[in-house]
Structure formats: C-alpha cells, structure tokens
C-alpha cells in the first residue's frame, strides 16, 4: 500500500501549476533579499539620527551638508529643503526618506529592512522549533497513548501554566538579554499548543483503517507515525506552524514593550509597530509600513503553507 507519493517530479509539476504560489514565493524571496540588502540601499544607517527631521512623511526629501568623522558617523552641518552650497571639506547630498522618518529622525525604510532581519529570523526560527519539537512530542504522546500520553500531556500543562513573563525574566538573568535568549524564550513555550494539536490528530488518526492496515503489514511504530499518521495531519500542523510566525513576531514586540526585547537602537518589526502605535494619530505611516509588511509576509507564508499541504497530500488527486 503506497500511500505516500515518491514521485518528486510529479510534485514539482503540481507546485508549478499554482500561479498564486509563485507570487507568494516571489514575495518571500524579495522580502528576504530586501532584509539582507535593504539597509544598504540608502545612505542612512539604522541608528543615524537627524533629530530636527523627526516624524517626516514618506517621500520627504532634503539637502544635507555634512562631513565624516573617522569612526564612520557624520557631523551634520546643515539640513535644508532648499539646495545648499558646498564648501571644501564637506559633502552635500540630496536625501529622501522613502517611508518617512521616525520620532528620532531616523530613516524608516532602512530601519524596516533592518527590522525584517530580526523579525523574520525570530518568526521562522520559532516556526521551525515548534514544528520539529511539537510534531515529535505530540506524535509520540498521541501514538503511544495510555500512561505515556498522560505523563507527557501533564508536563505540557505544567509548562503551559507557568507564567510566561516569570520565565522570560528568569531566562534574561541566566543568559545575556538578546536575540538568542528571546528565541529560546519564545521557542520554549510555543511548541506546547502545537504538541497538543498534533497529539489530538494522532489520537484520532491512529484508529483509521489505513493505519490498522499498515500495522497488520508489519510496519514499525516509527514508520507508521512519521510516514502515515503525521503526513495525514499536515493540514492543521501547517496552519498552526504558520500561525506561530506572526505570534512569535508579536511576542517579541510585546517583550520589547515590557523592556525585554531586542536592545535599542536595533529595530524589529514588532518594536517599530510599538513606536508607531504611539504616534498613530499624527504620523500614521510609522504604524502602516511595518504592519503592512507583516501582513504581506503572512499572506505569502500562508499560501506557501497551503500549497505545501496540497503538494504533499498523499490523496491529492485533483485534475
């Protein structure tokens, strides 16, 4: 009984059929490339402030006269909306805040792509951790059932009940505050609901006919679990995995709101949204750009998730 297609060329054809998927893949690739090179596309750095040009709208352009310090920072001599005359030893440039500037006169465009690195890595890493740990833990718990299930699920409940903040404060003390600790903190709890979700799937699926059939054919427990049961619950698993991406991004934002996120002046999409919320009446673009990008990213990830599910689905025989 061959339930799981090993014909990978066939799989690729199925993937290619979907225009929507291609658009989504293109979006993710573009976002990733921009996250890498975006901060270098502008003459600004993510931390460079021009305090007098705070909260400027998108597309604001101005002339800047400056000279360079030997540590790479610049001394701003003059800032003006009108062209400035140059003098020896100085540089004059026309610059533009493509996405506007923030409350400290920093270029939002640069900061957003810098933040994309942080947020995308938090989101993706968490999704990965959750997917792996959740599947294995939940799968084993549901498959073996009985007292093993009982113990494993009680452990999940205990870990789920301990106040998250308490645990994060503790982690920040044990490790240095920073991206790794945040990843550890978020990854450390987000697999819990995932494990329960998968266990719920496995509990019901393991009584299905094809599992019983595989069992009678002498397949090993691991093979049944990972080759038959888990692929069949891929739908909910992928939905849940994609869901953890924005949740992780916002948890980081929430932690930085409480003073435990990435340290300033480093930006993340979450912390940019926090900053944007405060000025949303007067400077809505500070909220709009990071929120919009998160939504776009999520839309793309969801489409990819759905397509993956369809592509891997053992019974997918449409068209």
């Amino acid at each position: 009984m061959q339930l799981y297609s090993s014909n990978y060329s066939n799989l690729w054809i199925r993937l290619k059929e979907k225009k929507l998927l291609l658009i989504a893949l293109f979006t993710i690739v573009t976002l990733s490339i921009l996250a890498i090179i975006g901060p270098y596309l502008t003459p600004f750095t993510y931390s460079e402030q021009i305090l007098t040009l705070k909260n400027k709208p998108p597309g604001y352009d101005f002339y800047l006269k400056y000279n360079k310090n030997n540590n790479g920072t610049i001394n701003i001599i003059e800032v003006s909306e009108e062209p400035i005359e140059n003098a020896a030893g100085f540089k004059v440039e026309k610059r533009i805040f493509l996405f506007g500037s923030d409350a400290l006169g920093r270029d939002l465009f640069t900061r957003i792509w810098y933040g994309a690195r942080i947020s995308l890595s938090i989101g993706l890493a968490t999704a990965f951790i959750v997917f792996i740990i959740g599947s294995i833990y939940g799968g084993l718990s549901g498959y073996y059932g009985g007292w093993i299930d009982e113990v494993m699920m009680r452990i999940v409940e205990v870990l789920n009940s301990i106040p998250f903040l308490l645990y994060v404060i503790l982690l920040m003390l044990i490790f240095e505050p920073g991206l790794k600790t945040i990843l550890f903190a978020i990854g450390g709890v987000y697999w819990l609901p995932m494990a329960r979700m998968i266990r719920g799937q496995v509990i019901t699926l393991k009584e299905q006919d094809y599992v019983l059939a595989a069992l009678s054919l002498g397949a090993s427990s691991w093979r049944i679990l990972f080759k038959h049961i888990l692929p069949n619950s891929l739908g909910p698993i992928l939905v849940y995995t994609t869901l953890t991406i924005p949740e992780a991004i916002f948890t980081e934002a929430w932690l930085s709101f409480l003073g435990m996120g990435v340290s300033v002046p480093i930006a993340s999409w979450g912390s940019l949204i926090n900053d944007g919320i405060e000025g949303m009446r007067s400077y809505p673009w500070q909220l709009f750009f990071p929120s919009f990008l998160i939504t776009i990213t999520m839309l793309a990830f969801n489409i990819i998730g759905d397509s993956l599910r369809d592509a891997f689905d053992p019974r997918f025989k449409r068209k």
Partner: protein
Amino acid sequence: MAAYILRRFGTMLLSLFFIISLTFFMMKVIPGGPFSSEKRLPPEIEENINKKYHLNDPWYVQYKDYLIRTVKLDFGPSFKYKSRTVNEIIADGFPVSAKLGSTVILITLVVGINLGIVSAMKQNQTQDYFAMFLSTIGFSTPNFIIAYLLMYIFAYKLKLVPPAMWGTWKHMILPAISLAILPTAVVARLMRSSLIEELQQDYMLTAKAKGLMERQIIYRHALRNAIIPVITYLGPLIATIFTGSFIIEHIFAIPGLGKYFVSAIQNRDYTLILGTTVFYSLILMLMNLIVDILYTLIDPRVKLYK
C-alpha cells in the same frame, strides 16, 4: 470513563503541585521584591514591612505557607493592593473577563466554522480565496492594532460606541471584535484544511458514490471528524480568553482579570502571582480534560485509556 476522569483529577492535583512549586521558586529567584521602589526605604522600615508580610521567614516556611494556602484556596492579601485579598481580586475580575470571553468564543465558533466550511466546499474558488484572504489578514494583524483602529473609527470618528470602560453591551462590542478576530481566523483555516482532508478520505468518496447529497455528507460525516483540530485549539484558548487578555483589557480599560497575569509579576505581588497561576492552570487542565472527553464522544474509536 468515570475511572478515567477520576484518574485525571488525581494527576491534575499532582500537576498543580509542580506548577505551584516551579512558580514559587521562579518568583523567589528573580530579582526585586514586592516593596522595592525608586526610592529605597531605610533598612529598618524595610525590615518592618518584611516582617509584616512574613517575607523574612526561611524559604521552606514560605513555601509551606503557599502550599497550605492553595489547599485552602485562600491566597491571602495582595501585596500591591493592600486593601484587597487575592480571592476578592479574582472574584471581581473573572466574571468580567468571562463575560467578554464567552462573547468572543461565540463569535469565533459561529463565524470561524462557517467561514471554514464555505472555503473548503469552494476550494480554490473565489469564495475560498476571499475567505482565506480575510482570515490571513485576521491572523497577521495583531489584536492591539485592530483594537486601536476600531476605537479610532467607531468611537472617535463615528462616535457610535463608547471608546473604553465597562458597563453596557455597547462597551463590549469593540473589545469582543478585537479579541475574536485572531481565533476566528485560525478556526476558519483549521476547519478548511481538515475538512478538505476529510472530504478526500475513502469513506467520503464512498458516500458520494452512494449519492448522498453533498450538504448532508458534510454535516453528518466530515464535520464530525474535521472539527477535532478546532476543538484541540479551542480548549486552551477558552482558558486563555476567559481569564482575560492583558493588552485588550488595558486598551479598553476593562476591569477584568487579564491585567493581573502581567502586573502581578511586574509588581512581584507574590500572593497574586500564585493565585492567578493556580486559577488559570485549573481552568486550563479542566478544558483539556473536556477536550479529551470530546474526542471519544466524537469518534467512538478513540481510546484514551486502556
């Protein structure tokens, strides 16, 4: 079944013991006490306060006191809100959060499940794309942004509803919508994906071959199995939503319980941390038990115990 439930209650008590112990030691290890403030007090005054609240006792005495309090379900006075007890705080806050929470769950179930069914039935058609687009926006936009936007549009600009505070049903509209959007979106997606899977199972194909009407098939057969992931998701969610959301209650100035899960820790309000944790974990474990029982009711083949 009765024996199983009894056994579950037994293990729940054991879990509770571990939860209390872990929480106790964690809150004792993290820096800062309930009475530390910007202005450090003269040491003698600090001493007097610690004596009054038994913070001078050795850790095992304090630990024992906490265990006894939990057994009696009487958590004592709050350290921060000196004129209230932890039990009073929970008794005041929980009904508010639960009232809002039940509205949220109702919206989630009705809208989420129906959206999921429509999507699954019309898979890869316009209705599906539209529903899934909506739900993706729902779960990629954080609820606090939705909350602020709703408040801005409906309370500030249109003046249709009060911006914040608690009282009439009108106060409940904006927070309920803000809170319901994410779970609704998730339920819709879970429903869609598991229903699609269910529709391709052999028994469904057989039923179709037998000529049963499509709608009947869905409700009688597929829905029952497809709803399992939704139920798994809703169990812990109900525990979380009924005990209140910190951020939404903060934004809409709702006197619920959600606030304390965060502020108790920020204030190092030891008794309140313990009280809220025990309360939450009891509800969570109860919900998980109900979910497990539901599995067996929905699919009689499922065996939880041997």
